[in-house]
Structure formats: C-alpha cells, structure tokens
C-alpha cells in the first residue's frame, strides 16, 4: 500500500472526524436544525431527542447516568467549570485545592487564576516515571481541601495516573475529585464509579468527533456535586451551563463516544502493537534514546522519546512530512522546553530533544515503518553534526561541563 504524505502521528493534539460521525451529524445542520430548548414544537423535540441520545451514548462510555453529563464547548471549559465551579460553591468549607505540576494548562492556569482570588493550591510533583506519589497526595490534604484535580492520562507523555487510588483517598477524606479524562476516555477503560471520580472533563475532538464540543461529568449521588455556573443565561444543562446546545456537535460527540466504546478493546490492542513496533524499530536503529514516562502505566497509542544530543526543532525539520509534536502543541510556538518533561527531571537538554508520537484510528504499519526509518536517518545525520554527541563520544560528562548560559 502506498503511503500518503504527510503522515499524521499527532492524535493527542486532535483527531480527524470519523466519517460515520459526520454522517450522523449532517441532518442536524439542515432539516433537523431545531433548538433543543424549544419545548413547544417538533423541531425542538427532534433536537432534544438527539441530544438525549448523545447524552446517553457519552454516559455509557464512562459508566455514568445520562443526567450527569453537562455539555460544554470543550475540555478547557469543562476544566474551568469543574475547578472554579467547585471552588466557588464550596468556598465556606475551605479554600485549598490539590493538583499536579504535569496537568494541562487548562487546569494549571485555572488554578493560578483561583490563587489570585485567595485560594491556595498545592501542585504535587511527579516521580521520574511521571506519576504522582500517593503519599505526597495524602500529606498535602488539609481540613481546608475542597478539591483534588489530577488528570487521568497525560497529553504529552501518556502516563496514566493511579486514578482509582486517588479516588479512594478523596472519598475517604470527603474531598471532591475531578479528573481531566480527555486523553483517556474512549481509549482505555474509564468508569466513573469504579474509579470514584466525582467530576470528569471530556471532549469530542480527541475521540474522532468534532471540535468545539465537550462535556463535564458531574456526579449526582454519593455525593451530589454542586457547581457554581460560570456562564449565566437561560439555565440550560440543569443551570450549570447556559447557552443554546450545539446540537450537531453533540450528536457527533455521542456517535464518536459510542464507536470508541464498541471498538476500544480491539483498537487499543492494535495501537499498542503499532506503538511497540515504532519503539522497537527506533531502538534497533539508534543508541541513547529514552522513553519519557512510565512504560507500564501508559496509553496504548502514546510514545514520547528523547533523542539525546539532537535538538527537537531540528529533528522535526528533518521529518517535515510527518506530523508529530515536540513538547505539546500548546507550547510548541515558544522556545521553552516542555514543562512536563522538565517535571520528570529529564534535564533540559533531553527535554529539548523529545518527540511525542500519537497513534490513532488511521495509523498503519507502513506509516510506522516509514517514520522509524526516516527518523533513524535524520537523528544519525544530526548527531554527526552535534557537538554534544562528539563530546559525549570523547568521554566528556556533559552534565559537569561549564556552559555559558545566555
């Protein structure tokens, strides 16, 4: 099979919409265009019925009740609603939140905004494998702690946090537990009851649905979680998120969730095999390459590798017919190395040398082989050009060298 270039291997950034999802959405742009809040005519009823079906499809993906799904514009809004919504609603109970340094910016920056308003936030460090320590979490809890927010799977290094254990600790202490499940839901088993999650952020465009639609799972029983709405208006979504529902987007989200639920078991095995093949081929062709983050507790479709002595941007330039990411897409416009990799203690030089590979529904073995071969050639060429590689081969310990930091 001929390979179509460029190759897309950045499925953590976004995914193409599955044609089956597009097909499900199309009628809701034209003949079934009603406002789901129009209660007095068939146009509204049809839209509401479609939204209810999607709500059920999404709830089924995460083991929730359909009434517990609140639609939003995407995961950034879901994270804002969850964190600010809890912080404001439970302000009298306490003002302390716990999160981790490797969270997505939508969580970190939301926490930073709360800090300006008198809240206190603990940013848990991560261990070398990218996972938080449960002891650190326990030690951080105070009688003022009202929310723990820890992502399920990391968007850069794909490591999966011990969510069930965190959920159990939160439950034991009576603290609300939110997780940004954007990279995990639909990819690996994720059940809000098994994991004792109270709030979970989801988005359509990471699971082969459209951009601009997300959801927040909000637990209704044991405990019933209350949120201060962040957008006021017509009182849609049980008062938690006003605004006319994006009906076609929601229909697509629902269909995408259903497809992921049905296909996850076989698809995750296929992707893990492709990912392992990519990893194996790179290791066969190159020395001194390092996987960032836990190999064991990891999404099946993620690989994040540092290619020592080679700088990430020049690496991407050499594989310009392959779409991958150096750091995360949100920060790749700046020259700063990834804060996630820095948090692992990788050393800035290795953080600068990393590539994130995200495989997905249309990734093939041929693509994996092409990328592995091309990357091996480019890294070899760049290392011949690298003063650091030369010094290392001469036996110089780069970490003890005096550099003039400019």
């Amino acid at each position, binding site marked *: 099979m001929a390979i179509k270039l460029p190759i897309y291997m950045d499925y953590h950034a976004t995914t193409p919409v599955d044609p089956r999802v597009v097909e499900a959405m199309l009628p809701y742009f034209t003949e079934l265009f009603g406002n789901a809040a129009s209660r007095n005519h068939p146009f509204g009823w049809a839209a509401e019925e479609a939204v209810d079906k999607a709500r059920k499809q999404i709830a089924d993906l995460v083991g929730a009740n359909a009434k517990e799904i609140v639609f939003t514009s995407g995961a950034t809004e879901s994270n804002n609603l969850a964190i600010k919504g809890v912080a404001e609603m439970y302000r009298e109970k306490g003002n302390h939140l716990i999160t981790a340094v490797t969270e997505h910016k939508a969580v970190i920056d939301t926490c930073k905004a709360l800090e300006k308003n008198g809240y206190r936030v603990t940013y848990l460090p991560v261990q070398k494998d990218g996972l938080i320590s449960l002891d650190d979490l326990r030690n951080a809890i105070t009688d003022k702690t009202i929310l723990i927010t820890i992502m399920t799977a990391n968007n850069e290094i794909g490591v999966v946090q011990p969510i069930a254990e965190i959920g159990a600790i939160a439950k034991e202490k009576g603290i609300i537990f939110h997780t940004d499940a954007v990279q995990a839901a639909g990819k690996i088993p994720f059940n809000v009851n098994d994991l004792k999650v109270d709030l979970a952020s989801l988005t359509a465009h990471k699971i082969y649905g459209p951009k601009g639609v997300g959801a927040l799972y909000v637990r209704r029983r044991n405990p019933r979680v209350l949120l201060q709405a962040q957008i006021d208006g017509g009182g849609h979504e049980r008062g938690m998120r006003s605004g006319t529902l994006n009906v076609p987007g929601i229909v697509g989200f629902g269909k995408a969730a259903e497809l992921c639920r049905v296909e996850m078991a076989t698809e995750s095995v296929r992707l893990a095999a492709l990912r392992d093949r990519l990893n194996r081929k790179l290791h066969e062709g190159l020395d001194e390459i390092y996987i960032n983050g836990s190999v064991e507790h990891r999404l099946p479709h993620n690989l994040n590798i540092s290619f020592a*002595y*080679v*700088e*990430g*941007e*020049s690496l991407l*330039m*050499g594989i310009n017919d392959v779409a991958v990411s150096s750091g995360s897409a949100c920060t790749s*416009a700046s*020259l700063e*190395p990834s804060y996630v990799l820095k948090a692992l203690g990788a*050393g*800035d*030089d290795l953080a*600068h040398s990393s590539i994130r590979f995200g495989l997905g529904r249309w990734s093939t073995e041929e693509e994996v082989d092409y990328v592995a071969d091309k990357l091996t050639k480019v890294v070899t060429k760049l290392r*011949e*050009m*690298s*003063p*650091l*590689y*030369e010094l290392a081969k001469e036996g110089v310990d*780069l970490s003890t060298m005096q*550099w*003039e*930091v*400019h």
Partner: protein
Amino acid sequence: MAYSSKVIDHYENPRNVGSLPKEDPNVGTGLVGAPECGDVMKLQVKVNPETGVIDDAKFKTFGCGSAIASSSLATEWLKGKTVDEALAIKNTDIVTELSLPPVKIHCSVLAEDAIKAAISDYKKKQQATGKTAEKAAQPTA
C-alpha cells in the same frame, strides 16, 4: 513556522560540518551556548600563520534549523577572511542573509559569539606560543 529557503538549504546541505584538531596552535575553537537553552555551537577556524587568513572553518551545532544554518553560513563566510575581517561579521548580517524571523535572532547572535570565541582562542594560543603571527595577532580588534 516556515523557514526561508536559505535556512532549509543550509539545514539539508550544511557546509563545513566537522572538526579540526583542537591542539593545533593555528586552530581556534569556540564553543558557545548551553544544552539547556536548546543550542550549542562549536566553531573552529584554521589560520594560515604566514598570511593571517582563515584557510579552513568547521562547525558542529546542536540546535534548531536556524542555528544550524547560522553556523553553516558563518563557516562559509569565514574562509578566505583575515582574522580581523572575521571579527567584523555581525549577527545582523546573518539575519539578513538567512531572513531569520525575530524569534530566531538569538541563533545569529550565538553564531557571532562563536566566531569571536574561536578567534579569541586562536589569539590566546598564539600569545601562549609566543609567535606573534603577522597581521593575525595585531591588537587592532
């Protein structure tokens, strides 16, 4: 970010990649930058002691495409210049030649630093060996 065609050309066909013998008294070596900043350049010049002219220049760079192109271009320009002429190369010349965008200006600064460091190393060696080699070591710079 889109790279200029000149940057791409230097990246794909880098000129003068390699190393000269560090211990040679006629070779000056500059190593600038830091791994944690994302770019390190090693630039070397070999000066003809008779004429004070740079006969050969080599580089190795860890850095983005613009950093590679800046140092590759620098080696091209250095060859055939006297030591003093080499010191007159400004980072802005490199920016203009390669059409570097504002976020990549630091690459050209680093290349200028590398030239200065290599020549200063060469001069130091010359003084140490007591051979004040013609024009090359005139204290005009």
